C-alpha cells in the first residue's frame, strides 16, 4: 500500500481527484475553483498603490490564500512522507534532447541544473525564472484565469471563453516548448 502511495500516481487517479475540487469548493462555500486570483489578492493586500484593479475587499477572498497555503503544505507533506525514491521517469527523446543542454539530473521534479539560485545571475536562468514567472502572472490575469480557472472550472461549466483561453495556453506552450525553449536552453 505504501509502495503504491510512494510511486508516482497515474493520471486516472490524479485527474478525477483534481476534478472533485470543483464540487468540493462549490459545496463547502460556493467558491469557484481558481488559483491565479490568489496572485491578485496578494497584490491587493500588500501593494494596491492607487490602482483601481487592486482596490476591493480582498479579505472576502481570503479563502483563496488559505487554499494556496494548503497546496504549499500538501506539497511539503507529500515530499516528506511520500517521496518517490526513484528519479523522475523522462521520455527517452526528451532526455536525449535535454542532455544536449547539460540537463541530466532527473532526481527532482524540476531541472535543478537550470533552475537554481546561482543560475539566477545567468541570462538563461534569469529568463527562465524571472521572465517566465512574470509571463505567468501577467498572462493569467490578462486572460482572467489559469489552468484551474479556465481549463478545469471554465470547461466544467461549459463556458466557451474558457475554451478559447485553454486553446491559447496550449498553442503558446507548444510553440514555446518546441521552437523557442531550445534556444533559451542553449544560452
Amino acid at each position: 500500500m505504501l509502495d503504491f502511495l510512494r510511486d508516482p500516481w497515474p493520471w486516472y487517479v490524479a485527474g478525477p481527484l483534481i476534478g472533485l475540487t470543483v464540487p468540493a469548493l462549490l459545496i463547502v462555500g460556493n467558491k469557484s475553483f481558481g488559483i491565479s486570483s490568489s496572485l491578485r489578492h496578494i497584490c491587493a493586500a500588500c501593494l494596491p498603490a492607487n490602482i483601481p484593479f487592486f482596490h476591493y475587499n480582498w479579505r472576502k477572498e481570503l479563502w483563496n490564500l488559505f487554499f494556496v497555503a494548503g497546496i504549499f503544505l500538501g506539497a511539503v507533506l507529500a515530499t516528506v512522507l511520500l517521496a518517490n525514491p526513484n528519479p523522475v521517469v523522462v521520455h527517452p527523446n526528451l532526455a536525449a534532447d535535454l542532455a544536449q543542454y547539460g540537463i541530466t539530473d532527473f532526481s527532482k521534479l524540476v531541472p535543478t541544473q537550470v533552475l537554481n539560485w546561482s543560475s539566477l545571475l545567468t541570462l538563461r536562468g534569469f529568463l527562465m525564472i524571472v521572465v517566465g514567472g512574470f509571463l505567468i502572472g501577467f498572462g493569467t490575469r490578462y486572460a482572467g484565469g489559469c489552468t484551474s480557472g479556465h481549463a478545469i472550472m471554465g470547461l466544467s461549466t461549459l463556458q466557451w471563453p474558457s475554451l478559447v483561453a485553454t486553446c491559447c495556453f496550449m498553442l503558446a506552450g507548444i510553440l514555446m516548448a518546441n521552437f523557442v525553449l531550445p534556444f533559451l536552453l542553449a544560452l
Partner: protein
Amino acid sequence: MQTDVFPPEIDPIEEEIRHQDTICVNESVIEHRWYDNLKYLVIGLGFGVVFVKAEIISWFRIQEMFRFQSFHMYGVIGSAVVVGMLSVWLIRRFNVKTIEGEDIVIATKTFNKGQIFGGLLFGFGWAITGACPGPLFAQIGNGASVVLVTLVSAIAGTWVYGLLREKLPH
C-alpha cells in the same frame, strides 16, 4: 463575537471591481470568521499532495505534454474536466446547496480579447517554467526554493497587468 469591520452591504464600485475577471462573485450574507477558511486549507492540502505525487508540478512532465511525448498530463486535465463537468451537472440537476444551505452560484465568464492575448502570454510562461500558478506553490513546497523568485515575479506580473489594464486591448 464578530469582529468583521466590513458591512454586509456591497458598495457598487467595490462590486464592479470584484466582478472583473469573475473572482468570487458569491456575495454571501453569511458572516465568516477567519478560521472558517481552514476548510479551504484542507482542500488545498489534498490538492498539493496530488500535485506532487502525480508529478503535475514536474517541469519534465510539462515539456512532455507540449512535445506530445506523453499522455499523462492530457489524461490528468481531461479526466479532471470530465469529473468536474459531471459534478456541476449533478449539482444543477439536483439543485444541490452548500453546506450552509445557500444556492450554488457559478459565475458566467464573458469573452474578451484578453483571453487570447493573455492566454498566449501565460502559455509561454507555462512552457518555460513548467508551472502554472498552483504548481508554483507546490514546487516551492517540494523543495525548489528558487521558484520563490518565480512566484514573486508572477505577483509582479499581475501587479503590472493591474497597472496597465486600461491601456491593454480587451
